[in-house]
């Protein structure tokens, strides 16, 4: 492949830390891996946590720092959900890769170069249970000469026998302070001006996901120039304007079904994602101080139901209408039971 020009990469890639020590907020794993760099040894690893918190970054960084650019290709195998063509392929790939012997562990060109190979299985939670089971054997067979790095969002989807063979590290959502300092660093490099309100908006709308924060920042910078305010960030982030959420909520409170239906239609025509609407409605309902807990509970129940159905692929309009109808019945103390059901 032709050499990649720095300038043609999106900022998320451009600002991906190259060294483990630059990974922010994940102190425990950084400490352990820094140690690894000295002792040139490490256990199998399992990184888990929400998107955009540095899992892939950390795994790639340590691999590069252990082997350097020369040996990287022969010592590190990166597999992810996209390469997963069923367990047979994975197994063959790993076997072929692990079977070629590595020399004794000698430092080369300033890199520790320990006598093992690293296999990074990114997005391991999308592997089937069968595939994971088959991997157990493979891990054992090659345990002397390989270290596995599993990466996933949901640790519950990794089978226990695999998880228990690894040192587990949870990647935490980034705190607002850390997020702010990374963002300020990028602003500095790119010559952007971010006022303090914008900075705190960006940290809070990205909810601990630094990738998201960087993408929003780049979007806003390209669209609105080098001085960025809070409004610009909200408009690229897909957050629904509060007026829209309030209008729907007010329609539910009014007890007028047709009015609520009209608001629901507007939300759909404006293209707002219904999943986002549900989470913002949730905030409104939970924070409202003029409605009793029982009503809140009833509304939350229907929000949960709709959320699940959306994940199943149900229609956005029908689900939001159902939520509006349920909320209306809760808020206006209409009977919750249907009268004509047989």
């Amino acid at each position, binding site marked *: 492949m032709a050499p990649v020009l720095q300038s043609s990469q999106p900022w998320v890639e451009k600002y991906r830390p190259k060294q483990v020590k630059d990974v922010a907020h994940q102190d425990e794993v950084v400490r352990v891996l820094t140690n690894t760099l000295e002792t040139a040894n490490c256990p199998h690893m399992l990184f888990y946590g929400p998107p955009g918190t540095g899992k892939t970054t950390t795994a790639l960084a340590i691999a590069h720092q252990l082997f350097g650019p020369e040996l990287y290709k022969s010592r590190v195998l990166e597999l992810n*959900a996209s390469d997963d063509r069923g367990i047979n392929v994975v197994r063959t790939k790993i076997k072929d890769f692990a079977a070629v012997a590595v020399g004794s562990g000698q430092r080369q060109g300033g890199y520790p170069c320990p006598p093992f190979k690293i296999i990074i299985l990114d997005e391991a939670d999308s592997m089937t249970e069968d595939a994971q089971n088959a991997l157990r054997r493979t891990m054992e067979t090659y345990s002397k000469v390989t270290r596995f790095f599993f990466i996933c969002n949901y640790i519950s989807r990794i089978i226990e026998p695999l998880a228990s063979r690894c040192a587990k590290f949870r990647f935490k959502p980034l705190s607002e302070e850390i997020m702010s300092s990374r963002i300020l660093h990028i602003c500095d490099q790119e010559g952007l001006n971010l006022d303090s309100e914008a900075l705190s908006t960006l940290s809070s709308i990205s909810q601990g996901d630094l990738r998201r924060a960087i993408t929003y920042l780049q979007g806003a910078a390209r669209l609105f120039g080098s001085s960025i305010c809070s409004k610009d960030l909200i408009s690229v982030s897909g957050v629904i304007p509060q007026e829209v959420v309030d209008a729907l909520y007010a329609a539910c409170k009014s007890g007028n079904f047709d009015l609520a239906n009209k608001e629901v239609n507007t939300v759909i025509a404006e293209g707002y994602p219904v999943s986002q609407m549900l989470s913002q409605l949730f905030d409104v309902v939970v924070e409202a101080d003029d409605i009793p807990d029982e009503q809140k509970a009833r509304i939350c129940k229907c929000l949960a139901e709709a959320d699940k159905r959306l994940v199943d692929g149900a229609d956005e309009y029908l689900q939001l209408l159902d939520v509006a109808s349920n909320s209306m019945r809760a808020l206006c103390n209409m009977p919750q039971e249907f*009268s004509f059901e047989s």
Partner: protein
Amino acid sequence: MLWVDKYRPKTLDQAMVHQDIALNLKKLVAEQDCPHLLFYGPSGSGKKTLIMALLRQIFGPSAEKVKVENRNWKIDAGNRTIDLELTTLSSTNHVELSPSDVGFQDRYIVQEIIKEMAKNRPIDTKGKKGYKVLVLNEVDKLSREAQHSLRRTMEKYSASCRLILCCNSSSKVTEAIRSRCLNIRINAPSEEQIIKVLEFIGKKEGLQLPSGFAARIAEKSNRSLRRAILSFETCRVQQYPFTSKQAIPPMDWEEYISEIATDIMKEQSPKRLFQVRGKVYELLVNCIPPEIVLKRLLHELLKKLDAELKHEVCHWAAYYEHRMRLGQKAIFHIEAFVAKFMSIYKAFLIATFG
């Protein structure tokens, strides 16, 4: 050529709606480092038009020289080979496809094509973009697996291949994918904007529009620009010169569903259910998507019902549409909804009128 195609703006500068977004898109691609993009919004709102104009902005007129191909992929999946076939649209710098058309094996296509594109990366010479663009349509219909498998690939090949994703409902696109893109919401144009476009087309075609005529078409379009332009052309074919009283013809299938609604309001019986089943079949055979049928039916029923029944009926519509997604045969669930409605409505009639 249909008017919808004839009057589709070719460049970002020509956009008649979403001008602000068009302007922004121009700024976005002025630099080399544009992120992946996700366009979402209701049907007929103008997503595709903007995407095509954007490609032209990036690559110049060559982006319009597309060839349509039926491509075959042979994918080695360990112990067997999978054969897949899909229509692609491509120019020298971009490829467009709807991977969900191959069903649950969509992820193979997605992977194969991205790797292929990354391999023949264009050289980053002056005045040329150092990347190719892959346009994926209907990403909300991609299987979970395909969406998962996009995650790392989007990062790995981001220098050589930019993705433009397009869909109706972004709720169905996983968080992980959304977090890797700049999300661009394309809302349905307002009625005023639609009127403006219709008047523009009328002028270009040299037509006389009675006052309020464009407004009536816009009102019936449900804020879909495509639909408005289509029915404008239909009116033109049916009767010209236009008269101010001229009817705006509804879509056949909508009229049909309106009949179904009347049928089941009139009589609730197994016999009627049987007749309705035939009509629903007819709609499905004519490729009206089942969720559209169900939504339209609900729409018609809501127009006719008492307030207290509306809640109940919308609840069941949401319930059965969800079941339809999980199941295999759409007809079962639509029919179940109709039966449920009949039973509710009958109970209501008895309670009210004895």
